[in-house]
């Protein structure tokens, strides 16, 4: 600024001298040149000042924008921090819950293992029950079928049909089949056995056991020294008749129980008569041997 003032002073001086015509032309021209140079210099400096003012304004604007950006960042930081705190709390809450659930999972897994075992057992029991039920239904059907076919003999009192120990048993009183102390089947008895054989022959894939039973009156004949001998001989005799009537020998067996498997107390003539008998038992198939399992 000082230089500018000096220049202006010089120009003024030059003009003053020129106007008073007290200076030479050369001096005058030199002064005018100086004045022009000073003007140009002043204009340049003014331009610089203007440029600096523009830059200052821009800088102020930039600062303001920066301040606003900083403020926006501060806001973002605050909000992010809040959400971070909340997320941390949520994380802690989830961890706590996970811990709690972890205990529950262990418990559930243990319970699941136990339950799976129980489920397996239950399924097995169910299968057994289904098979037992099927066997029972099969036996019931067979019982019904045999009963229907031997109905006349049952009605006539020649035989009885019963379920004993889960097995179908045809009981024939000895009085119809044998005379006392004899193992020879009477003619009437043969006829009954023939009819029984006809029914049994229709039951495929079954085996039959023929068993002789006596009462508890001892026997001591030469031929049958005990009721064992008599009961067994009677069973064998019945088997022979059944074979003769058409049953395959492979399906038959004979057994003697003597007086040791009574179905009534040997305390009188009527009950003793019940114990004197031939029993033809249908030997169960394997699938009929399933028993109903006891619950654990």
């Amino acid at each position, binding site marked *: 600024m000082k230089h500018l003032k000096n220049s202006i002073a010089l120009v003024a001086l030059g003009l003053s001298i020129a106007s008073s015509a007290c200076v030479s032309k050369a001096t005058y021209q030199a002064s005018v040149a100086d004045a022009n140079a000073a003007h140009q210099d002043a204009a340049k400096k003014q331009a610089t000042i203007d440029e600096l003012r523009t830059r200052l304004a821009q800088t102020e604007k930039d*600062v*303001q924008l*920066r*301040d*606003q950006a*900083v*403020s*926006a960042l*501060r*806001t973002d930081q*605050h*909000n992010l921090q*809040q*959400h971070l705190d*909340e997320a941390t*709390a*949520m994380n802690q*809450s989830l961890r*706590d*819950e996970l811990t*709690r*659930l972890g*205990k*529950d999972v262990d418990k559930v897994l243990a319970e699941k293992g136990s339950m799976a075992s129980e489920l397996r057992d239950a399924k097995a029991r169910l299968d057994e029950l289904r098979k037992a039920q099927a066997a029972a239904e099969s036996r019931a059907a067979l019982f019904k079928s045999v009963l229907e076919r031997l109905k006349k003999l049952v009605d006539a009192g020649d035989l009885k049909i019963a379920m004993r120990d889960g097995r179908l048993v045809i009981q024939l009183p000895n009085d119809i089949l044998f005379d006392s102390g004899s193992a020879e089947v009477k003619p009437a008895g043969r006829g009954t056995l023939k009819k029984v054989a006809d029914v049994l022959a229709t039951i495929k894939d079954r085996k039959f056991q023929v068993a002789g039973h006596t009462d508890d009156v001892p026997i001591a004949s030469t031929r049958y020294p005990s009721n064992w001998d008599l009961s067994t001989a009677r069973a064998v005799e019945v088997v022979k008749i059944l074979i003769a009537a058409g049953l395959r020998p492979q399906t038959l067996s004979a057994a003697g129980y003597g007086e040791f498997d009574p179905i009534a107390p040997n305390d009188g003539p009527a009950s003793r008569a019940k114990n004197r008998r031939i029993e033809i038992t249908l030997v169960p198939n394997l699938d009929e041997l399933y028993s109903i399992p006891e619950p654990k």
Partner: protein
Amino acid sequence: MKRSHLSIFAAVLPGLALGSADAAANPDPPLAASAPSAASSAPDDSVLGTVQVNGAAGIGIVYPKLAVVPLVTKSDADTLAQLVTKRDFELSDEYDVVEDVPDGPFLRDTELTLDDWKKKRIEIVVRVWADGSGPTTTLCGDLRFTTDRLPKDDAIWKAAFQTKVPIGAASVRGATHVLVDRLFGALTGKPGAFASELAYSTAVGTARQIRRLDADGFDLRDYGPAGQTALLPSIGPAGEIWYALSENYSPYRLAHGPQGTPTSLAAPGSLLGYSFSPTRDRLAVAFMAGGVSTIYLGKADGTDLVSIKTPKYADHPVLGPLGKVAYVADYRVWIDGKAISPSGFIASAPTFCDTDRGLLVLFTVGVGKGADLIGTDTTGGGLFRLTMGQGANTWAACSPDGRRVGYFSTRTNGEGPGLYLASLRDPSRAHRISKEPGEGLSWARRDDLAAVAATP
């Protein structure tokens, strides 16, 4: 010296916040001439009472134990509702919110067993969840008390209170605040004020920017024009934010809305302070003209302004319930023409608090190098202290339900400086919700949640 008028805020005199640009540029404001002699002979602050501010066990109050049931859920809305509920109850300082709850897992329809919660010594069990999705979501909440007596051992433990809040256009977070307000109402007999927001101004470079944030510290956002000087925000008529605005060092004027729409007031000078009544139908303004400040009362639209008689340099008018007007003059707080702040202390920034204890006035007093918050009744009696010996604590603002107070603190211990919330019952358990410094704090219900809150 640009914006040198803002230097007035450097003083612990928030009540003297505003002045004209010309007047404020004067480094020797006339107010200083009438300042009490506190600087030369510090007053005995023991007359202000004491408050335990170690932030530990409070002041001996035993808080009921409350638990929010941690539901196992895949729903984000469920999880967020639980977190917001828990935080709101924590911030309330009315309950001891516990984490130690009975073993779950708890689903929405899990029946809660009274004895399990009683064994944990929990007294109140809160359950919140969200039904539906998107705008059709409904927030549900219920309360159970372990003091309940069931008619039989095997009887179902029924909720003592249930409520539902359809979200509609609101967010899950916002609607949850409404839900908690209702739960709080069921617990205390008076709804809470968690669906509310705070507004204040903060320095952004050489400017002052209005900020808003929810009452749980979430969703901080700017409001109003940037790059100018906006001060003293408050919610006024039509639920809009109003504030004092100065553009390019011009005198302050009352403005509102996001664009700083000016309000024409028939009073001369630069705006010093203003306040709307709780019903938002009355306005009190203070103007500085020719070195003289005057307080006017009128309608909320700025018409029918009539000056009231005050001591010199009256400022910071505040309208309270029952037509009460508080203001600051001669460094003291005045109500109904009577100074109610303790003599000898520089008092500023009064605010009314409509509490269960009656109408209270909170204000700041300078104590030593700091400033503390003080409360009294409207006659200056029943003086009590809310802060003590922790920096400058200024700009008290009461929650809309009158239970809590928000303020700015410069404390360097504890959680550090920032915006704090505390209960009036036990102000020692203050919670910082923002690190940002500010001034001119106000607290009001969120108008954007009014429709949600109005649902039956």
